[in-house]
């Protein structure tokens, strides 16, 4: 515990400088986190997070285990709503709307974001039904349109050629890499603006990982992508921006080039160079 305390940065002035520098990178943020605090019981998980997520870029959230990166990601689509003892203060603006406002429809928020979990989790139904599940929830019913959509999104994730002859087979028969791409297609089918990835490749083999990474890079022309990742190399490969978190605090935010080559904070430098992980 002693060593972590000495690593922690408490210098307020430095934070302010970093914040103002940060704003210049992001003119029109897609997601703006303002003074976000999250507590589970007495555990202070997220501490005063201020963060601007640029639109149509890949932003990676990195940091050691338990630093709160997944918690932060899940607060973007209000996945903490049903967890007991979670207390959230502060604001998260998506398209200038505070998603923790009382008048906000949580379903409308979730429709804006597709979530890709750590392990692919297809629904217990056929491949086809998996893709049309979301659109059907939101009222789509025309068979022709549903089919066209399915074809479009499965093509987009590069799965169409592999599954077009067996759309009615159970989704659990796909390989795990295919399942993850199916989950991505399922998320895209509700026409979100944002893709959230929670260590979306950590359960996959290297080839599937590469496919998913390439997909993210192609998809960023249409979507804002936020990824939590454990692997620094992945962040280096695909991220445009990087947010580094440590013990519930956002330590540094900047372009990938900046974070990897000219980190402002000693803590970031130590993490990047593998001093701790």
């Amino acid at each position: 515990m002693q060593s972590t305390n000495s690593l922690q940065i408490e210098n307020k002035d430095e934070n302010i400088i970093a914040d103002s520098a940060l704003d210049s990178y992001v003119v029109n943020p897609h997601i703006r986190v303002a003074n976000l605090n999250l507590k589970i019981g007495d555990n202070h998980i997220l501490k005063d997070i201020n963060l601007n997520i640029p639109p149509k870029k890949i932003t990676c959230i990195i940091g050691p285990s338990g630093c709160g990166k997944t918690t932060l990601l899940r607060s973007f689509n209000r996945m903490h709503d049903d967890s007991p003892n979670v207390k959230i203060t502060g604001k998260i603006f998506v398209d200038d709307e505070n998603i923790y406002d009382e008048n906000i429809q949580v379903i409308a928020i979730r429709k804006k974001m597709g979530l890709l979990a750590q392990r692919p989790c297809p629904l217990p139904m056929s491949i086809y039904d998996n893709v049309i599940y979301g659109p059907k929830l939101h009222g789509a019913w025309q068979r022709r349109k549903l089919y066209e959509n399915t074809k479009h999104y499965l093509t987009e994730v590069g799965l169409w050629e592999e599954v077009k002859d067996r759309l009615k087979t159970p989704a659990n028969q796909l390989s795990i890499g295919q399942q993850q791409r199916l989950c991505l297609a399922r998320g895209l089918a509700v026409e979100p603006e944002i893709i959230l990835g929670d260590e979306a490749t950590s359960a996959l083999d290297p080839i599937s990982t590469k496919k998913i990474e390439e997909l993210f890079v192609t998809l960023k022309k249409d979507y804002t992508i936020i990824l939590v990742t454990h692997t620094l190399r992945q962040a280096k490969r695909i991220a445009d921006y990087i947010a580094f978190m440590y013990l519930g605090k956002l330590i540094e935010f900047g372009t990938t080039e900046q974070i990897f080559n000219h980190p402002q904070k000693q803590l970031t430098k130590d993490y990047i160079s593998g001093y701790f992980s």
Partner: protein
Amino acid sequence: MKLLEEKIFKSLMLFSAFAIISILGFILFTIVSKGFASLSWDMVSKLPGGGFYLGKEGGILNAILGSFYIVIGAVLLALVLSIPVTMYINFYLPKRSFFADTVRFSFDILFGIPSIVYGAFGFAVMIYFGLKASLFGGIVVVGMLITPIIMRSLDEVARLVPKELSEASLSLGATKYEVIKVIIRQLLPGITTAVLLAIGRGIGDAATVLFTAGYTDNIPTSLSHPVATLPLAIFFQLGSPSEEVQNRAYAAALILTIIILVLSLSARYFSRKLSKNKI
């Protein structure tokens, strides 16, 4: 020395396995050898005739149908109770909830209560309300007997549902009710197995229906009529001094055993078939 230990233990295991199989074999042998001769098409397709209990014409269609009426009603009743309870304590309440534990504990106790106690309880309640032994009474009491059975097996499978499943569904914009629908799809094989096992238990139980469902030679046409059941058909005929009637009791037991065998086999078949979509 170690080798001897190993040998003793191994022969003990083998002995137990053979004991189980031979008990089943012995029961089947008894029922078949005594009952098979009396088994006829009339037995399963006709109501008891005038001299049936003296060993003359007729069959036990009343008891076969009666048993099915009761057990189908009881299963529906049990599902209506146990599915919402399971969903609530597993997917609405937090993981460590005092209320959920209380519910589980209550069901555990209900599970252990012998069926004759349910029968006696049902009987007492029916007397209090001035009700006669009837199909309705039988359905309710057998329903009480099998609700904890279904609920416990549902609870077991519901605990295995991955948290990611409801999260995946929620993140696509589903409401809690829509999430429950997805979870029920995942639980379908478990529900089927639970139901078929509960039918097997409910259809063969004599003590619950003894006072609450009564016995009749007719097929009931209303919920307030008394109804015959297979276990009681066995019970009454076995008590007869006539050997012919006693053998019919074994034939009835054979029919009941075949029904339960078919149910167990279809439980396996359906749960495998429904598992194909399960993740």
